[in-house]
């Protein structure tokens, strides 16, 4: 079936059945490989995308559910000058990335959190990122990155 949706601001028309996941459409059809597949069962958050502004697991989302929706992947984030988004820059500046596999999901969960809560507490950051698992960092620097992002975005 034909599915029409917006991805990172561009209208996309694709052909897929319900056995195809949104994750596969993004990675295979659209070449947006920033979205990762970790567990494939909605537990790790590596496949997180923003669907109409909210974080969801693209590995559990049948492609037809994208119809009419607005999707943002990590490739769709940009800073005011067209460069890195302040969240991406903060992850670099705090060293919140080791292997990097969880980072796109972490960044999108951070975006969703800061869009609704520009000054989160550490507890709120932990809850906001609770669906994103990192096996390298121990989360300390990731939380610092979210705090730094929040501070910079408030000062913009």
């Amino acid at each position, binding site marked *: 079936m034909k599915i029409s949706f917006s991805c990172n601001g561009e209208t996309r028309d694709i052909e897929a059945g319900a056995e195809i996941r949104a994750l596969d459409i993004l990675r295979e059809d659209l070449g947006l490989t920033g979205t990762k597949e970790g567990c494939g069962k909605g537990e790790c958050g590596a496949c997180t995308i923003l669907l109409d502004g909210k974080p969801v697991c693209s590995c559990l989302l*049948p492609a037809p559910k994208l119809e009419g929706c607005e999707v943002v992947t990590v490739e769709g984030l940009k800073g005011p000058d067209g460069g890195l988004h302040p969240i991406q820059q903060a992850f670099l500046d705090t060293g919140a990335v080791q292997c990097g596999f969880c980072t796109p999901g972490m960044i999108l969960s951070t975006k969703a959190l800061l869009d609704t809560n520009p000054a989160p507490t550490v507890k709120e950051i932990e809850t906001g990122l609770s669906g*994103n698992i990192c096996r390298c960092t121990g989360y300390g620097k990731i939380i610092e990155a979210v705090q730094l992002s929040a501070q910079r975005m408030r000062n913009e």
Partner: protein
Amino acid sequence: MDYCKPRTVDEALSSFGDDSVYIAGGTDLGVLLAEMLISPVGMIDLCAIDDMKGISRSDEGLTIGACTLISDIAAADDIPDCLSLGAAAIGSPQIRNMATIGGNICNASPCGDTLTPLMVLDAEFELKGAGGRRALAAGDFFRGPKKTALEPGEILTAVRIPAASLEGSITGFRMTGKRNGQVISQVNMAVWAVIIDGKIENIRISAGSVAPVPLRLIRCEKMLQGKTAAEIMKDAFMKNLAAAAEVEITPISDVRAGEDYRRSVSGALLVDIVTDLVSEGVKDED
């Protein structure tokens, strides 16, 4: 796989065939599909049926559409605490943004975190099938792990919580898991109580993930019924209450927790919730 997105319940019912499957949020179904445990021919998406979404209140009580998102229930401030806390305990932000209360109910996992709240709230489930409408009490709906009273093709359209469960009562919910987020409950427990003049006039307790279906702890309820805060808040009473909870459940050992652990945690959770509610009930009257 074919896919359709009906706008009405009747349209969904007429689309249903032997090899089709209903989908709401897809957070449980997506795992079955990923593991190739099911291979349906057609998928019927219930999420575009407006009548099945949203929370509404009337003189008769609260109606929650089956396709209402778990994140919306977790954030609702005009529903009983136990239900919003149960919803907030499910999965992660990503899962709560996709999952629905109807999905949590129909998946009928013994550890579903909205099930024990619905049990203590005396919720009724509205079902619609080819044969018409019927309503079933939550306690009659769950038949075993992942087994429900739903007939093939039948749809859970809404959850009703009677006014009698809303007025003048307080509720609590607790669960334990191996971490705070993105975890499946080892044990979850909900309590509903009416406390007047420091005395428990009415109480309902339900424990989850400790039996094939969410259980009402009738023996514990009887121990608490009619008791005053002074009688309850004693070490000896609480010890007996915890012991009663431990024998009233029939847990198994699995990948998430051992049977013994589930028994002792059930007793401890009950004592914690009762302590909270009795303190809150007494404070409310001050």
